[in-house]
């Protein structure tokens, strides 16, 4: 009766000795390792699509039901800040893409610069977002006990936000603006949460990159983070269109 060949794990491990230092023990090649983690990242982004999908579904349903409230609500948003933020994010996506390129072409200083720029732009986005949020808080447009219908029942009292053609909403419809702002805070808040997590990871990456990581052939982490960053960017593009732009002519 034949026996399985007896091979100790030292012998099995020694076969890996010649491979690169970053090759994890359970992969056969660096290509397999990079493939697997890229694929995992795409799958993770798919789960993110489903996560935001629930919110987008809610948005679509209620927009259909409470169209006038959603139009009036949308007019309360500050398009200038929104556009600025969109540009900031697109720019940060560009710096991130350059970062990935620097990593792939082993440019350490370039990588650190790009990551730092992305980091700053990300913070800039959050800063602008907080300005927008504070406007909403001042006007009592945060859903909850202190929600105010003033701007919708009497648009003239809020001349700064009034768009041409804005008419006072009947009380019943004006109340539905709270649904709009619920979704506004949920969607932008969830997006901002993703930004904060991303900025945290960026900080970690900057420290590691200064120490020489990611520029010695093992670029998967930077590539995957790049995917995540672009994904947040794309989510924002949709939010910008659906929340700010859709009801303007």
């Amino acid at each position, binding site marked *: *009766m*034949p*026996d*399985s*060949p*007896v*091979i*100790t*794990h030292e012998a*099995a491990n020694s*076969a890996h000795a010649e491979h690169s230092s970053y090759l*994890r*023990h*359970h992969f*056969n090649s660096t290509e*397999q390792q990079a*493939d*697997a*983690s890229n*694929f*995992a990242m795409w*799958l*993770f982004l*798919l*789960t*993110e699509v*489903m*996560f*935001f*999908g*629930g*919110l987008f*579904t*809610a948005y679509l*349903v*209620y927009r259909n*039901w*409470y169209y006038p*409230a959603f139009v009036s609500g949308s007019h309360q948003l500050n398009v200038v800040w929104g556009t600025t933020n969109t540009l900031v994010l697109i720019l940060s996506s560009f710096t991130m893409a350059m970062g990935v390129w620097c990593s792939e072409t082993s440019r350490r200083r370039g990588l650190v610069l790009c990551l730092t720029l992305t980091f700053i732009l990300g913070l800039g986005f959050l800063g602008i977002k907080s300005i927008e949020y504070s406007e909403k808080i001042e006007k009592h447009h945060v*859903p*909850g*006990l202190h929600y105010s219908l003033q701007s919708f029942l009497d648009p003239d009292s809020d001349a700064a936000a009034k768009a041409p053609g804005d008419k006072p909403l009947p009380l019943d419809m004006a*109340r*539905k603006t*709270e*649904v709009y702002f*619920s*979704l506004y*805070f*949920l969607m932008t808040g*969830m997006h901002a949460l993703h930004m904060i997590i991303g900025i945290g990871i960026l900080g970690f990456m900057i420290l590691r990159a200064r120490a020489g990581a990611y520029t010695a052939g093992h670029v998967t982490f930077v590539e995957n983070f790049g995917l995540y960053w672009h994904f947040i960017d794309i989510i924002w593009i949709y939010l910008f269109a659906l929340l700010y732009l859709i009801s303007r002519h």
Partner: protein
Amino acid sequence: MSMHTIVSLPDQSTARIPKDNYITRENGLLSWLLTSDHKRIAVLYLISLSFFFFIGGALAGLIRLELLTPQTDLMATDTYNKVFTMHGVIMIFFFLVPSVPATLGNFLIPMMIGAKDLALPKVNLLSWYLYMTGGLLALYTMAVGGVDTGWTFTTPLSTHYVNTNVLTTGLAVFVAGFSSILTGLNFIVTIHKMRAPGMTWFRLPLFIWAHYAASILMVLATPVVAIAIVLVMLERTFGIGVFDPAKGGDPLLFQHLFWFYSHPAVYIMILPGMGVISEVISTFSRKRIFGYTAVAFSSVAIAVFGFFVWAHHMFIMGISNYAVLVFSLLTMLVAVPSAIKIFNWTFTLYKGSITFETPMLYAFGFMGLFTIGGMTGVFLGSSGTDIHLTETYFIVAHFHFVMVGGMLMAFLSGIHFWWPKITGRMYPEKLSQLAAVVTFIGFNFTFFPQFILGTLGMPRRYASYPPEFQVLNVFSTAGATILGVGYLLPVLYLVWSLKYGAIAGNNPWQATGLEWQTQSPPLTENFAVMPIMDHEAYDYAWLEDQQQKDEREHRQLQERQKETEVPSAG
């Protein structure tokens, strides 16, 4: 580096537990808590899952005790609400969803495809920690007073009208959900990227196909329940207006989001179990699974159809009649791939050399009970009967036939089947056969009366009932006691077998999968050299050929030895 798959008949007299294996490689609690070995993580899961199962089971015992008499006498009605809610939450999110995938799937997927580990070992460990965090939050919730919304968190009940711990329970489910997402993600990446040379998609064991299908559901459906729960939590704390009808929100939206996960979730629970049954039926009939391709694709079909039937939980919630019609039809369609599996397993048995080891007994239990559970699902899928039967004990019985009769049987079948591989030791066969039979009898006594109670109109989720229902309820409670014994037995003898069980050897069942071609318990890296798959899955003809060849070589070797011995004697 190649290795011909070696078929070794276990020789019990000389079999020994190999000195170097995944259990003995490192010692100490930390080496387990910080491990990235999929096999050790599977064992961690097995221990923690069993713990939660027995907590959920104890709660089920309390429910059955209360229902022994028509009056509300054992506990206050509020307490009863909390007990059945926690039973549901713990059993579904902390036992059924991770049960087979996190234990057997974790242990076996890399071994079956000839890999050293899952593609993302650290993520795998993270998923266990998330699971434990969620589980401890659920226990904390119980300790501080529990929650009484039902496991479905129905709004506006959960957002406005209860004063119990909805937030911590929601958080527990949310965190456990991420554990499930990461497990599914890890499985998909592993099955795509880590297969050994020669392991093509249609050579994969059906266990892998089933887990692949379940993983798709985990990855796509779980995020939706995550956001639904976030919305409930925010609505409860900050009073946002997404589900609150007073503000223009719609509670139905919550139902859609919740069931968009929670219906596919039953397939997340059952599909891996079906994978186990395919392996067991094939091994103990000594035959390739009849219609391999059909069974493989039926798993994927269940996953796909499973996404489009969620509204059958909402037939009485005022959705449009046309939606009812469409969802009713789609629900019937899920019966087709499920039936394909049952038929193909039955045809596999036909003319097979069937033996009745414990895993096979559980598998038979699965086939019978799952069929009843599935067929009663058709009653519930057609809107006419559903309106009468939903929210009665009929639905409780249906769900438990599929989940306890189906899934739990499959889980126990798999645990027994791979126990020799996991621990290197056999469980006591006679005793475990007895346990399988006790479980089957106890199960039927517990849940069959509930079908009748349901058709008679006994509603679910009440602590009291009219006296004329008592006889059947007594049957059910008595059955639950037997069932409890049936579940306790395996714990006792499996723990006993860790020390005193017979040594299993590499391949005690003489099965074909790659996991059986390596030592038990396996090496940390699973295979001494990378295996190469050069035959189909379940190829028992190939296995017999190999065995005959081995015997022939063995005989020739002996003859040659004799020949060399003769001259020296002369």
